[in-house]
């Protein structure tokens, strides 16, 4: 049997950080006393009408621009009818056949659509079941009810759990940088559901999918998808067939369980929401949304690769975090004669390691290492004023107390020995003291040179240039 390839599409709910709810004037909140942010509209009292939050439309347009989507000239709301205590109107106002945005992409993954809707109220089930069935009581907190949401749906373009999780992180970072959402998975302001199926590698057809819900961290998201892919592969390889169903992730043990079919069997009886007029964004609104975009991770990574010549992985790593990216660009700007690739390696390598060593509580931008100081330090290493090893020592000091790298080099006596006569005599002494190694080098074992280099470095306390030491050893041995 051909290898089974993973096919994954994601559905992402993003809570918008507007001041007020989607269709009424109640303030958004998180963690407040239950049911204090409510009004006749979001409690669905008789006779009330929804009014669309303009800020939510503007935020959705920003998301649409960031995901390179087409914006519908007139999109409309529908009623999605369902009877459940978290929905006081007994319908959710959502978008159905004409969403505000469609046909976009983020990186290599195509976006099917993005639409506006309202969040349901939050339910707390008292009792062991944790669900409405079998609970002692169910409490409803309407504070969350009516929070604006943008639901983003991808095409089934993702080919593995790790890839899907990494892409979801990129999406989160992108939306976060737009400033339109807190995108916090634990608090539920970002919720990611996954549609998962497998098919013989190379096939164009889609297998039967299952929908995975309730994975409220990226770790759980990846674990959930991995577990489901493994289950599907095993089942198909054993000759079974996949049943389309919704699976609920249990974070306690990482297992997935089907929701009761009774809860699943919905006929939402969609029809156009007669209480609202179409969303018809002006050209100006769309242009302003596009122009307001910061440089987003995907674009930034492309620029780092193209203009600055960074390797793909380093570019992506830097671009994912706008603060560190900004810091990197400052350092690279101050050290204009040094290749950006070298600067990037220092920021993502040595500096990141030094910060971790120091406790890992601060980011590069927050650290005591000023961008100018790091530029100076990299320059000193590049110009062989100090050795690479000394550079790391200076960096550790900078991380701990900040300051000027030149002063630290001076104070610690780390300046490279530039007097070649002095090094030559140290090398000569080292060759003599390690005659066995010298013999091995002469008989062709190049690796043995490390012993002598080590002896020189020990003697010079790392202040000699490694390359120069190598050259002098070979010269001493007449090679």
């Amino acid at each position, binding site marked *: 049997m051909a290898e089974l390839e993973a096919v994954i599409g994601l559905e992402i709910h993003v809570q918008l950080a507007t001041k007020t709810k989607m269709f009424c004037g109640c303030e958004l909140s998180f963690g407040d006393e239950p049911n204090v942010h409510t009004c*006749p509209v979001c*409690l*669905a*009292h*008789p*006779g*009330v*009408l*929804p*009014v*669309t939050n303009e800020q939510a439309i503007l935020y959705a347009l920003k998301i649409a621009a960031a995901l390179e989507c087409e914006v519908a000239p007139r999109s409309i709301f529908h*009623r999605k*009818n369902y*009877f459940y*205590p978290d929905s*006081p*109107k*007994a*319908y959710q106002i959502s978008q159905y056949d004409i969403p505000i945005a469609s046909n976009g992409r983020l990186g290599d993954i195509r976006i099917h659509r993005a639409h506006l809707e309202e969040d349901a109220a939050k339910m707390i089930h008292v009792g062991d079941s944790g669900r409405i069935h079998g609970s002692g009581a*169910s409490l409803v907190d309407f504070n969350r009810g009516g929070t604006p949401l943008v639901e983003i749906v991808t095409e089934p373009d993702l080919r593995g759990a790790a890839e899907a999780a990494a892409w979801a992180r990129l999406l989160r970072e992108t939306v976060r940088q737009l400033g339109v959402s807190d995108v916090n998975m634990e608090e539920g302001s970002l919720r990611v559901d996954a549609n998962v199926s497998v098919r013989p590698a190379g096939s164009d057809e889609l297998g039967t999918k299952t929908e995975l819900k309730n994975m409220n961290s990226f770790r759980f998201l990846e674990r959930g998808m991995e577990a489901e892919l493994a289950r599907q592969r095993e089942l198909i390889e054993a000759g079974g067939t996949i049943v389309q169903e919704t699976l609920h992730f249990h974070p306690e043990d990482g297992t997935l369980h089907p929701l009761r079919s009774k809860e699943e069997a919905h*006929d939402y*009886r*969609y*029809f156009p929401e*007669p*209480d*609202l*007029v179409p969303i018809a964004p002006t050209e100006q609104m769309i242009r302003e949304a596009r122009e307001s975009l910061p440089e987003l991770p995907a674009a930034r990574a492309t620029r780092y690769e193209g203009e600055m010549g960074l390797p793909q992985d380093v570019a992506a790593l830097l671009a994912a975090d706008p603060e560190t990216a900004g810091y990197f660009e400052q350092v690279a700007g101050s050290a204009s004669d040094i290749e950006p690739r070298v600067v990037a390696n220092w920021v993502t390598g040595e500096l990141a390691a030094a910060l971790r060593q120091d406790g890992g509580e601060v980011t590069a931008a927050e650290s005591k290492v000023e961008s100018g100081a790091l530029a100076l330090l990299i320059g000193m290493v590049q110009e062989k004023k100090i050795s690479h090893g000394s550079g790391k020592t200076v960096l550790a000091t900078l991380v701990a107390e900040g300051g000027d790298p030149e002063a630290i080099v001076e104070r610690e006596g780390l300046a490279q020995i530039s007097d070649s006569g002095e090094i030559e005599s140290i090398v000569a002494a080292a060759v003599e003291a390690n005659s066995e190694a010298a013999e091995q080098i002469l008989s062709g074992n190049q690796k043995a040179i490390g012993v002598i280099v080590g002896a020189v470095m020990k003697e010079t306390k790392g202040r000699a240039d490694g390359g120069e030491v190598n050259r002098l050893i070979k010269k001493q041995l007449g090679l």
Partner: protein
Amino acid sequence: MTDMLELTAVQAQEAMASGDFSPAEYGKAWAEAAAEDELNAYLWRDGNGDAEAISVEEPSLAPVAVKDIFCTEGVPTTAGSRILEGYRPAYTSTAVRRLIEAGAPVLGKTNMDEFAMGSSNENSAYGPVLNPWDRGRVPGGSSGGSAAVVAGGLAPWAIGTDTGGSIRQPASLCGIVGLKPTYGAISRYGMIAFASSLDQCGPLTRDVRDAALMLSVLQGADPCDSTSVGLGEAPSLPDREDLRGLRFAVPSELARDAIEPGVREVFEATLARIEQLGGEIAEAPLPHAEHGISAYYVIAPAEASSNLARYDGVRYGMRSEGSGDLIEMYETTRAEGFGSEVKRRIMLGTYALSSGYYDAYYGQAQKVRTKIASDFSAAFAEFDFVVTPTSPSVAFGLGEKTSDPLAMYLNDFFTVPMSLAGIPAISIPAGLAEPAGGGPRLPVGFQIAAPAFAEQKLLAAAHALEGAIGFDARPEGVRG
């Protein structure tokens, strides 16, 4: 004192402004008149001790009777349904707020068909309203209470709602003026929803000038209703006396056979009157209007099935305490709280929207709706107005049609197309006619429809025609 109650609202406003009598005297006289309600027309009256009065500091307009579908803060609001028994809204509807701000106190809340579903007022959970012309007959519906209080001398004027004819048909059956404005002219905020894409608030008054005055108070865009746009300019009081240069279309397909002979006679006489006033009469095709009822009875129940799903006994209104099981509480609350016509329409609407049936029912009905609207547009390219009888019959007997929902639905045959097209239409009393089965003569309404937002022109024509008709009959014992 007798004189005061004989005045129209416009006349009373002028009299109060010139100090002929005080708003307090006038208000008291109407409160006393309303207290004499023997028609079961009021569900709540100001001053009956049940709730705080909706007071106006300095009244300057006649007190108004409000259909019990409009939310009034702290004052019982039932929409004629058992399921909203005991409900006192936390807020006041925009229409009522505008009336109060304009200086019109609320005289009382009027009885209606449950959730505005009905054409006879027999679907009220609080008993039928009686027609002041003949208490053995219905006042029409669903704004039957509002029509009956105005016709019966229990209120100077009233507001109602019209979804498929619910202002015009009871106005016709009670011999008063009823105006359904353009969809979007008046805010729907706080008006308990039946069919959101059709519901529209409007006046029920003694004459056309009163309707114009009330419309000028009610109309306007409302930030709480994004489908409201207002009329741009508030209409002024009409004073036109002729119809010269105006073209009136009678639908070519007008089903004259379906109209009661007496009603048909009054209709033809009114057409002659239009010509006497200089208006032109001709036929215009409205080929899809006859499918109006079918489309309406898909669209309205579909929207209603969604609008009425919120009444679950949890947050407001009636709750039926059963075994303590949540699902059972929902079921018994809705079973006991809703009447049979409401249940019928919830089921119809749910079915029409169901997966697999949507295109055949709701989708098809929307296409018919679009066709009807374009028929009217085509007619208005050549004509100023389209005219029909308001209702195919005069007021019918209580219980006469309750067992035959289809016969009841056909009452709205002439009024539904305008609702589907969203255009304004007015019913004015045009004369009296003997019912089909014989008996004392009863009022007949004449309907005039105009293009969207042409209310000013509609009111002017209606006023001229009203003056020429000179309808001055009143139910026995009613002054005015």
